[in-house]
């Protein structure tokens, strides 16, 4: 692995951290409609990555989101793995460079991460391990609204996120 590529990974993590930090601020005003900026960025990177890049994308994305996610470590890692794997799957079907492809990838990625966080939390709570269940009808509305706002963001700004400075070494896959 080249030095430029390692540097790009670190830059990617810093961008993710800032995106997640910005999400926490936007959450005060946008509420359930807050787009999952960090996952939209991850989708933008995955659009130009190869399949094997998932091995480093998952841990880096989980590490950058950990200070902002209320999930237990295994739920966060599992949810991130699921979200990025689903994004990779959608990319194989749709044109990741197009508006529809970007929006769809962002929607399924955000929705699957949020659903996993909620459902696994509820199952753990039912298991009596002390985890609090936060499962309610409101959560499903949040899944849809966060997914839609993220899809909109990806459609509008996805192109910009795909060409952020410092990430050139991560773009291995041609359109």
């Amino acid at each position, binding site marked *: 692995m080249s030095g430029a590529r390692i540097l790009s990974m670190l830059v990617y993590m810093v961008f993710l951290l800032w995106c997640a930090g910005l999400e926490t601020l936007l959450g005060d005003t946008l509420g359930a409609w807050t787009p999952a900026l960090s996952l939209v960025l991850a989708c933008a990177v995955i659009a130009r990555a190869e399949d094997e890049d998932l091995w480093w994308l998952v841990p880096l994305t989980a590490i950058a989101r950990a200070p902002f996610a209320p999930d237990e470590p295994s739920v966060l*890692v599992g949810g991130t793995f699921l979200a990025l794997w689903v994004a990779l799957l959608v990319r194989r079907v749709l044109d990741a460079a197009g508006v529809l492809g970007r929006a769809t990838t962002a929607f399924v990625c955000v929705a699957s991460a949020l659903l996993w966080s909620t459902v696994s939390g509820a199952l753990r709570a039912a298991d009596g391990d002390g985890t609090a269940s936060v499962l309610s009808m409101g959560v499903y509305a949040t899944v849809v609204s966060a997914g839609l706002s993220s899809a909109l963001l990806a459609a509008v700004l996805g192109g910009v996120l795909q060409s952020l400075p410092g990430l050139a070494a991560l773009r291995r896959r041609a359109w």
Partner: protein
Amino acid sequence: MGVLRSRTLQLVLLLLCLALSLRRVEGMEQACAVLLTPARYVAVLAQPFVWLRGRAVQAEDGASLLQGSQRVRAALATAVLPLEPELRAGRTFVACEVVARVERAPDRLLVRAADDLAVRVGDPVVLQNHYVGRVSGERDGEWEIELVTARDHRVGAIARHEDEIARLVVGGLRRELSRERGTGAPAVVLAAHAPSDRRVRAGDVRVQETPDASGHAGRTRANGYKLGELEVLVEGAAVLHGVRTQVDWEHGLHHVAVLVDAAPAQRGMVSAREPLDAQRWAALMSLSAGNVWSHRETLKVVDHPQRPLRTGAAVVNGLQLCGRVLAQSAGMADVALLGDPAFEVEAVAQLDGTSEVAALGRVRGLGRVNDTEVSLELSALGMQRLQDLVQRAPRAQVVLWSAGSERGVPAGLRLGLLQPARSTSEAVAGGAARTVLVGSSVVDVRRLSVWLESNEEAP
């Protein structure tokens, strides 16, 4: 590279990862916590967002908070004294704040006494006019109390009904905790053993111990304290005597009083855990200003590897309760803030500026409504008590405070001001619970502290 490119391998690992995160598997949690350890350090790069969030928060009025907290703690500590004058005469009381129930033994309480020197094992414990149990031991600076509901507890008693008298021994449960129809109030029936006259089927049951029989002179101090109302229960062919108590064993035991020897108690009727004691608070460093899921209200703080934060410990800004420590991992701890669905606390309501309080039981966060209000869920009984309190002074403001009675949260931390105009009694899911809106501003994440019990050291 071929192996790494394998989609099948990715899918298998993904499914394994998901399956192992459905339940808490300690090995998996530890492995993931190790993987996420760098997060504790790289989070520093996102500190500007913590500062930005902190600047937008208004400061609370510290003086009124302080007065209110002192008043509510004094009210809770003195509310344990008997209302009948003859039950006060010639007796010395020491207030004890309930800290926790003993694990796997819900009939045993751990309490902190306002004056440890005065308390002895065997001393009776009362709540207002009611006998509730006996001091049964001491551990780590806390007194253990065996409640009269414990299976092996026995106390001599006398039942009076008009001219009839029966001597009996009371202790243990005749009937498990059930709910009164309509109000949802807890109903507990104690077992009454060996009644001297089985014809007595009703009446007031009060403690009547004799020094000779008990073996501990202190037990007679509780003579005259009420146990409940005698009743007869028919179970198959058996006719059993029981004593229906009027104590809220589930959510009403925030403070109790120990009847001590006549030697004067040094501190008397004060709350044992003092939230104004600066040594009991340790500053927290926030790693985030919030979280990425809008239906949650949590934040991450730095944990200490040698002395991890205690799960359930109160997190405050001054005397304003902001949340409780939820879990720890990877050198970080999650704090569930007031509006988070994982936030729960025992609470009391107070008519602002007075000593009138009502125990609300457990309240739970339902979500933040806006920058200044959160929605909380009460039990049906808690809601009824709150409405009774509001009706006593419809124009007065009502403040919600922590009630103590659980480890990590002292009494007298403010949850917020009840919003009277918009409080609702609409039923939420399940029909038995109710919601209220409480004024509570967005948390200033730069000035947070966590509560340390007196047997804990600051990180």
